[in-house]
């Protein structure tokens, strides 16, 4: 009964209630959609980082992490790889050698992180190879229709991912690094590095391919060569590895696998992507909190408007409230009625807002929002200029709770006003 009275009461002043509902709707659409954009950005960043850069889990010799000294390779790497490949949670494994080197072109030089990889294994773990071939799409966009010309264009501009046999050693570098070194595909680069015994050595590599990902910092600092070529250059055994990168199957819980591996290999360091790039993990966790903070602030602002409306409601209905209390409606029921009206008033706009926001998020989550004028800035910090908003169902559920909470808080003052009425006096008031 009180439910139905409260619901009917909010439609007594249609216009006023609609204005409040529209305000809540706009607040919700704005809040949820912008939250979804931020969340989508951060999720995309994480996905790309996992896809191109860190993979899910990395295993190292604990001392290797301190100084990246090449003597600290993973003991018995080959055997461990076999075991890891057999685990049901694991999709693919790649062994890597890793060391800081100097790269020089004919004009300039810079320091980069050089990864020695087995291309076939690496393809299964990270997608840098795709970042080389995806650039082929550029050629199509340039309207080069002729198949042979496309092939030529790709070979000239982006190259390949260790797919062609050449006499010289091959290196794949990022687009930013290529720009910095002023080199193209097939250009020669000299890599200077330390050998196992501490002496300096160098090798000539030819640029096989240029990859392009959204994170410019990585593009600028990560280069790939074949593992066996790097091993022989520095004098390491072919089977040795500094790093084992692991890609998990879909839906596998990261934490549990990390824990399992940590127990299995107590002598090694097993890290998830959150440990490897703590900034990334922190950003996503911090963002989750910030999104709620933003929603709370929006709701708080809306709550003040709702308080105002409900005060008007109570003031207008002094006589009626007096009558209700006179005939035996107790304080709890009066309070509940005012509170329910406030909740209905808020949640109606809230639900409409959520539905609109969900539709927007759904549409743009599929089609993306391309921010052309910001693309350089976004890429510099590792974010894609095409945003795919996304937000979990849990967020919506929490918002519903937050709206109800805000409505309850907003109803307290008006409800107390109503309770302070003395029925005998309220009944005499003429409005």
């Amino acid at each position, binding site marked *: *009964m009180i439910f139905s*009275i409260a619901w*009917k*009461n909010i*439609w*007594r002043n249609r216009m006023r209630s609609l204005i409040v509902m529209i305000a809540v709707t706009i607040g919700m659409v704005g809040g949820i959609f912008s939250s979804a954009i931020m969340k989508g950005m951060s999720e995309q960043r994480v996905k790309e980082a996992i896809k191109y850069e860190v993979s899910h889990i990395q295993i190292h010799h604990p001392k290797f992490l301190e100084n990246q000294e090449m003597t600290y390779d993973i003991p018995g790497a080959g055997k461990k790889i076999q075991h890891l490949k057999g685990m049901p949670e694991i999709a693919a494994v790649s062994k890597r050698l890793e060391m800081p080197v100097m790269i020089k072109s004919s004009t300039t030089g810079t320091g980069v992180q050089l990864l020695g990889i087995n291309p076939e294994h690496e393809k299964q773990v990270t997608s840098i190879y795709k970042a080389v071939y995806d650039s082929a799409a550029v050629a199509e966009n340039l309207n080069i229709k002729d198949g042979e010309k496309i092939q030529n264009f790709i070979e000239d501009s982006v190259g390949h991912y260790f797919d062609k046999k050449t006499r010289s050693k091959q290196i794949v570098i990022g687009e930013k690094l290529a720009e910095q070194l002023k080199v193209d595909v097939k250009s020669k680069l000299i890599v200077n590095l330390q050998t196992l015994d501490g002496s300096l050595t160098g090798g000539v590599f030819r640029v096989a391919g240029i990859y392009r990902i959204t994170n410019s910092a990585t593009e600028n600092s990560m280069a790939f060569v074949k593992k066996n070529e790097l091993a022989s250059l520095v004098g390491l055994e072919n089977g040795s590895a500094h790093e084992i990168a692991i890609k998990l199957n879909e839906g596998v819980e990261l934490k549990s696998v990390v824990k399992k591996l940590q127990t299995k290999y107590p002598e090694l360091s097993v890290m998830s992507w959150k440990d490897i790039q703590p900034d990334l993990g922190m950003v996503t966790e911090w963002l989750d909190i910030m999104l709620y903070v933003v929603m709370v602030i929006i709701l708080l602002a809306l709550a003040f408007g709702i308080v105002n409306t409900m005060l008007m409601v109570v003031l207008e209905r002094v*006589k*009626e409230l007096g*009558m*209700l*209390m*006179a*005939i*035996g*409606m*107790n*304080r709890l*029921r009066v309070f509940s009625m005012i509170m329910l009206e406030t909740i209905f008033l808020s949640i109606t706009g809230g639900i409409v807002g959520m539905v609109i926001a969900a539709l927007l998020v759904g549409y743009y989550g599929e089609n993306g929002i391309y921010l052309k004028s910001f693309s350089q800035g976004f890429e510099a910090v590792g974010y894609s200029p095409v945003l795919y908003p996304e937000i979990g169902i849990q967020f919506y559920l929490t918002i519903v709770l937050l709206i109800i909470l805000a409505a309850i808080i907003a109803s307290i003052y008006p409800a107390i006003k109503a309770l302070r009425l003395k*029925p*005998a006096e309220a*009944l005499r008031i003429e409005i």
Partner: protein
Amino acid sequence: MKILDIKNVHKIYNETAVEVNAVNGVTLGFEKGEFAAIVGPSGSGKTTLLNMIGGLDQPTSGEIIVNSTNIGDLKPSQLIDFRMNYIGFVFQAYNLIPVLTAKENVEFIMHLQGRPKKEREARSKELLEAVGLGDRIDSRPSKMSGGQQQRVAVARALASKPKFVLADEPTANLDSKSTETLLDIMEKLNREEGMTFIFSTHDNRVVKKARRVVTVEDGQVKSDKEQ
């Protein structure tokens, strides 16, 4: 046997600097089934007296005893229960719940009392038929005339099966015909249901119908006549 005993009741309002003796030493008794009018000019204290009988106000001194309970001793929450179970109110301005239909308005108080749905529906229908609104049970107050609304209010007042029906100037806003209809209905229900009706009024039409007339002036009983 008295079911309402008012003993030397005073009510002093001192919200402003001047003390107002709204009710100044009233002693009255009512028996079951009475149909009584409290008559007096405005400001005579009749509404205050009625409010105290109805538990909307408490006396400054003196006792109002219903069923051997002194209303003055009740706590606010007990007063609400007292009003809900013992008193049926009819107000001058009808004061129905505008968003509810006639039937829902009548059922409302039974709902507060926690009566089962079947009983609520049967009683509200019965009462609305008794006040001649059997065909308007699903109308909202805004679709009814003043007289019809006040008849719904009477039905509502009786719905809880109270001991008393208190009506504060129930006919003040009604034309002669509606007043007559309303009074006839109230008298009929008073006989059928056996509840005690007490009106405050200065309407001669009501005074004529009443079987007992208590005249109040300056907060004191001037006369108390059966007729």
